[in-house]
């Protein structure tokens, strides 16, 4: 884990600087402690991959919704109540047996917060940012995703203000599942595109 820049221990200075910054902003009336708490609370408890999973499960079970989702991601996601503070446009990429989509942000770490929450450390890592566009298959193998040569890999580099989310393929063996039963099968990694979803082992 030593290369993982997000797990590098930070100096005590960052903690002190942050505390000083917050106290000054509060003193100046530019923000309140409660507002900061609210934001943190939102990303810790309300906004996360479960949002995306609900979108995916709906798309798997409602062909009209799927169509709307692929046409205008933001509007279809807002139907489920996930507009997010960012309010960014979302483009949903449909995985098929022939095409596998995977998302990266080489210049920064842009990520569809409103449907997936805060990005994991590896998504922000220099290794992922630098390598995915050049050798997606090699990177996906490190995620234990071995795609056959017949599948085209499409890497989407989120360089504008659009955000990308992958609509994974519905796993086999879920034909009779309700929307609610499908939700827990959908993983964050599958919605980034570094994983496929397995059949539930029932």
């Amino acid at each position, binding site marked *: 884990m030593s290369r993982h820049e997000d797990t590098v221990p*930070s100096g005590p200075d960052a903690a002190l600087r942050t505390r000083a910054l917050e106290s000054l902003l509060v003193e100046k009336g530019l923000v309140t402690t409660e507002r900061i708490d*609210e934001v943190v609370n939102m990303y810790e408890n309300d906004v996360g991959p479960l949002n995306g999973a609900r979108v995916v499960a709906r798309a798997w079970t409602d062909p009209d919704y799927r169509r709307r989702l692929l046409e205008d991601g933001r509007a279809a996601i807002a139907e489920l109540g996930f507009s997010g503070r960012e309010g960014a446009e979302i483009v949903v990429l449909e995985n098929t047996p022939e095409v596998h989509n995977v998302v990266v942000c080489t210049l920064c770490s842009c990520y569809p917060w409103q449907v997936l929450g805060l990005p994991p450390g590896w998504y922000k*890592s220099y290794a992922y*940012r630098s390598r995915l566009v050049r050798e997606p298959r090699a990177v996906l193998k490190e995620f234990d995703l071995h795609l056959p040569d017949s599948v085209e890999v499409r890497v989407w580099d989120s360089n*504008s203000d659009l955000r990308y989310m992958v609509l994974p393929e519905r796993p086999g063996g879920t034909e009779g599942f309700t929307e609610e039963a499908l939700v827990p099968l959908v993983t964050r990694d599958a919605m980034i595109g570094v994983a496929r979803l397995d059949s539930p082992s029932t």
Partner: protein
Amino acid sequence: MDGIHDMGGMHGFGPVVREEDEPLFHHEWERRVLGIAVATPVPVPGGSRNNIENMDPAHYLSSTYYEKWLHSRVKGLIDAGALTANELETRMALLRKRPDAETPVHPDPDGVRADLASRGTAPSTPSQADVRPQYQEGDPVLALNLHPEGHTRLPRYVRGKTGTIARFYGIHDLQDAELPRGCVRREQPLYAVRFASRELWGECAEAGSAVYLDMWEGYLEPV
């Protein structure tokens, strides 16, 4: 800016390492930095990303994600005139000496709350400018060889390469610090452009793969 942040395609960063049972935050201060950055309605002059991209490259690489955010926010608040470096240093010195020191509060907390509540973050909607897209799906296009000093969304690895228009996203504001030569307005057609891996990486490319990039029309030239 052809800076250290523009790392698409680079070698040397090792394997992608995943942390097992990764928490959302590794330190309490990271929580606060996220909260401060999202909740404080003071725009960062020049943009938050610009501040991060202009960090000294060695500093950039050795800083964590939230350390970069903290750096960018502090610089932005100073640049915006919301606080001074001296105020921050003084406050840090106080808290270093007396970690449980009480710090001053605002005299009118209700006014602050009301003020913050009145500022909604307006979702960025596609611009409705009357601009006609020049390209259609399937058109071949060339990414221009631009090297602006300021912020740009055109990564190095795609410059001078030929791709194909894959999708039209409507009219969006170009985010570059400066308009590319020949452009007269920020509202521009935005496309997904497909670049074959072979075109980007030559004989070293993996087979059966392509990269899609969001390209404002000002980045492109007809082939």
